[in-house]
């Protein structure tokens, strides 16, 4: 296990691998987005209650899924980083945080636009909305905390502790709709008694989720390469000036 992680978390090898993975992710993302948006806008039925507004779901739900997924991945990477002190885990967290924040922000904004016609309010203080807002604040807190450290070593460990402490919010986001009686509808895709959503709506949703995943992978890879190269430049400058 350790050999595998060491092998793939070698910065040089990562840069080579990312060079091949990045265009693949970009292409898959483009294909999935075009097909998913076609399905979502032209080739799926309107909801019998909500009408055409239900199409916001295809933007809203995958953004939430991928936003939560990125936080979980960051927290796992932070845990590995605290134990193993590998620099790549920190680079992943730094690169992924803004992507996750933007996706959760998108989820909040589209949710608000969706809430206006269906609930009659832009925002309600319900458990799901509040917990997602907390997730957004956690992302912001991490970004601010991480950027206020000049020393990457200290910053990475402080950020890792914050990420790990904040992971308690993830099950709350997931189960808030079951634990409290919320205005937000309960989980309908992933649940033990099988999916409750119509198959012709499920298909565009899953294609869009795939598109979001590959989009996140593409941007995170790109940002990881940039962060890695920026650190190399920092080191080179420090060696040059003899600091």
């Amino acid at each position: 296990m350790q050999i595998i992680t060491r092998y793939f978390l070698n910065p040089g090898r990562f840069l080579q691998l990312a060079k091949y993975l990045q265009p693949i992710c970009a292409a898959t993302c483009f294909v999935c987005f075009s097909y998913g948006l076609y399905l979502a806008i032209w080739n799926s039925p309107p909801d019998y209650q909500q009408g055409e507004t239900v199409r916001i779901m295809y933007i809203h739900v995958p953004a939430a899924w991928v936003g939560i997924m990125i936080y979980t991945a960051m927290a796992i990477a932070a845990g590995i980083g605290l134990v193993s002190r590998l620099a790549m885990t920190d680079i992943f967290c730094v690169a992924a945080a803004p992507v996750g924040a933007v996706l959760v922000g998108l989820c909040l904004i589209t949710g608000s636009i969706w809430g206006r016609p269906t609930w009659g309010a832009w925002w309600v203080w319900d458990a799901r909305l509040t917990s997602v807002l907390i997730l957004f604040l956690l992302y912001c807190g991490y970004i601010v905390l991480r950027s206020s450290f000049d020393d990457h070593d200290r910053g990475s460990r402080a950020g890792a502790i914050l990420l790990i402490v904040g992971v308690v919010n993830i099950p709350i986001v997931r189960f808030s709709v079951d634990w409290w009686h919320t205005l937000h509808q309960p989980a309908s895709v992933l649940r033990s008694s099988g999916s409750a959503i119509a198959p012709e709506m499920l298909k565009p949703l899953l294609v869009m989720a795939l598109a979001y995943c590959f989009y996140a992978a593409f941007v995170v890879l790109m940002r990881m390469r940039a962060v890695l190269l920026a650190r190399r430049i920092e080191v080179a400058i420090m060696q040059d000036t003899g600091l």
Partner: protein
Amino acid sequence: MRCFFRLLCYDFRIQTRNRAEWSSLILFFTIVILLLPFTLGPEPELLRRLAPGLIWLAAILMSLLSLDRLFIQDARDGSLDVMMLSILPLPVVVLSKMLAQCGMMLAALFTMLIPASFLLGLDSALLPVLALTLLLGVPTLVFLGGVMGAITVTLHRNASLLTVLLVPFYIPIMIFATGACDAAAMGASIQSNLLLLGAILSLVLPSAPFVIASGLRQG
């Protein structure tokens, strides 16, 4: 164990003799409470309904004010290094310090609770419920503040950063605490909210010292 109790006594004595800190906390809490009727308008009915939430708001602001100095002062005068060199494990030292801080916060809050409840016209039946939520909630606030204070201890200007980091963790506590007060005001059962607050406290109390210690060690 005896070492721990002596350390605890010592930490409490430091806190009780820190008059400047005491008076600034109490003054700050009072000023927030005094300002609220001016921003909301002085209607007694409105203030009575909002009173538990307003007192909680003042308590949260007060804890944010006191927590940014929690470890910075120790780091500056070198007592943090002494803490780390102590024969007791660092989490135990941290636990004693945090308990003393909780004691001071609660004492400051409870001295001002009754005057504040008069000022805002709080229903006297709600006072015990409010006191109970503060008793269960404020230690959680202090311990969470300790965690964030520990990871930002090397940044010397961390007050605003600390607020950003703490607010997401404070929101659930505020929700359950004011939920209990609202339930009591409407005559419903307050048990579930109090149990949730207690559950959060019993989760945070044993785990936070270890997190704080690991946060301090990286500095």
